[in-house]
């Protein structure tokens, strides 16, 4: 058996900021709200933190300065495990003793999913070149996609979904069952931004965006921050809250493609899932609760299949009607309301919620029978990461 390094780490604390749409709250304020909540939750002081990792808003240096610390470990990027790469890098750093307690956060401010490079064609200076170089490192076919007006992830994922429908007979009603289930769960989450119930008809009649997707297939941009503290497993007895243990992580190599996989409409999620399952003796049937990325409804379908929670092409029938994925179903799914209804914390609310459920702190939305194993996933297309967490 391989040495599963990440098992040397635990999640000792979690924190979440105020969540809202167009709040105008400065990103550093949101980051510190979530970060300080997570540090306190872990029973630690700012000065105990010696590692920081993130991606996107609020650079590591700004947070370190505000907390008055000089981290010995800093992490970030998205090239090993998609959006969860900073968390995974912290697991490894702490497990290997390169840091003692690492703060990991993700702060977003109404972030969208489209790419509109500034400037026109060739020869318009270095800014666009730099942007395209960065994008090309995580999405090898971004330039040919932009050349055909495919500016948004809704277009890229929409084509996967259309192909899935063609191959397997997947329906809008099946996608809608996921959206309706998420809204039902969001109603039980005081921090979710959209909590009014929706019906399948509401879903089917939503404004079209990019076929087969309408507005309610798309997640909701928000302002907010989520943080976790990663500590060594040896700290578990001292945690004031139930420690969340790391069973296994999995990621996909960078610079894959949105259009060229031989097994299209599969995505890099199958590679990340395979890596994760190769690092544990647990099986898909052991999972008690699933928090799966839903930037678009179909991405959750892709993760259900990639993780082996259902067979290839069977996500539609698996979700249909919504009973199986409800809070009291066989596989409670996106119990906080998902990015579809709670809001687009870009892969970090799924992580936060898995911890909430494993700690038994879900309140009205707590899954009964105390879940022992949770799976968390993030990403779509060439971007993918997932992890198994346990009590």
């Amino acid at each position, binding site marked *: 058996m391989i040495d599963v390094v990440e098992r040397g780490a635990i999640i000792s604390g979690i924190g979440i900021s105020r969540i809202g749409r167009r709040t105008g709250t400065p990103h550093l304020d949101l980051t510190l709200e979530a970060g300080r909540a997570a540090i306190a939750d872990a029973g630690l002081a700012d000065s105990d933190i010696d590692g920081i990792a993130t991606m996107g808003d609020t650079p590591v240096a700004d947070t370190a300065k505000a907390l008055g610390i000089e981290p010995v470990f800093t992490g970030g990027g998205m090239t090993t495990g998609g959006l969860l790469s900073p968390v995974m890098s912290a697991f490894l750093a702490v497990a290997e003793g390169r840091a003692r307690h690492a703060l990991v956060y993700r702060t977003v401010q109404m972030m969208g999913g489209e790419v509109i490079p500034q400037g026109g064609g060739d020869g318009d200076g270095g800014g666009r070149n730099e942007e395209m170089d960065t994008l090309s490192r995580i999405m090898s076919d971004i330039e040919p996609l932009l050349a*055909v007006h495919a500016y948004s992830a809704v277009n890229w994922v929409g084509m996967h979904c259309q192909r899935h429908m063609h191959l397997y007979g997947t329906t809008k009603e099946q996608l809608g069952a996921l959206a309706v289930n998420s809204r039902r769960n969001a109603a039980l989450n005081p921090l979710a931004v959209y909590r009014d119930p929706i019906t399948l008809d509401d879903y089917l009649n939503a404004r079209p965006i990019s076929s087969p997707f309408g507005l309610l297939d798309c997640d909701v941009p928000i302002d907010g921050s989520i943080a976790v503290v990663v500590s060594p497993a040896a700290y578990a007895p001292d945690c004031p809250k139930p420690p969340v243990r790391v069973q296994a992580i999995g990621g996909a190599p960078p610079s894959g493609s949105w259009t060229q996989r031989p097994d299209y409409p599969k995505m890099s999620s199958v590679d990340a899932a395979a890596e994760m399952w190769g690092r544990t003796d647990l099986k898909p049937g052991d999972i008690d609760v699933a928090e799966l990325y839903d930037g678009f409804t179909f991405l959750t379908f892709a993760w259900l299949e990639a993780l082996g929670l259902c067979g290839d092409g069977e996500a539609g029938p698996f979700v249909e009607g919504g009973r199986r994925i409800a809070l009291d179903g066989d596989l409670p799914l996106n119990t906080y309301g998902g990015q579809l209804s709670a809001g687009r914390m870009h892969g970090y609310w799924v992580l936060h919620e898995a911890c909430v459920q494993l700690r038994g702190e879900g309140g009205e939305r707590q899954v009964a029978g105390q879940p022992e194993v949770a799976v968390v996933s993030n990403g779509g297309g060439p971007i993918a990461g997932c992890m198994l967490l346990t009590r």
Partner: protein
Amino acid sequence: MTVTASIVDGAVPRVLPRLTPENRPFWTGGAKGALLIQRCDACDRWVHPPTDVCPTCGGPLHPEAVSGRGTIFTFTVNVHQFHPDVPPPVVIAIVELVEQSDLRLPTNIVGAEVDELRCGLPVQVVFERNGEVYIPLFTPVDERA
């Protein structure tokens, strides 16, 4: 066999790809009405997107004209305006060329009714001129021709 395809001028701006030694034949071949795809000197496989050596056997690659025929592999009808200068609807698709399965490229479908779009629909290339770049677009094959 090379089918010389028609060329139209771009009506709306595009975010044009950066040309490299590898991809230049693909993006500029339309000037002569040819869809140029890389092919391996050693194993004869077609290769796309453009790269330096054959991913299958490591052999050298040369650009070669394909028929310009294919089928819609998948598609999406985008009706939301993302780019301020590009009015919807825009049909974005991946077309699979007839020369080889898995030989696929992102494109736009033009000259089609939205209701007739489906995976598997036969299409043929047309080119849209944008300066020195000729974007290969596809249009449904005229069954009466």
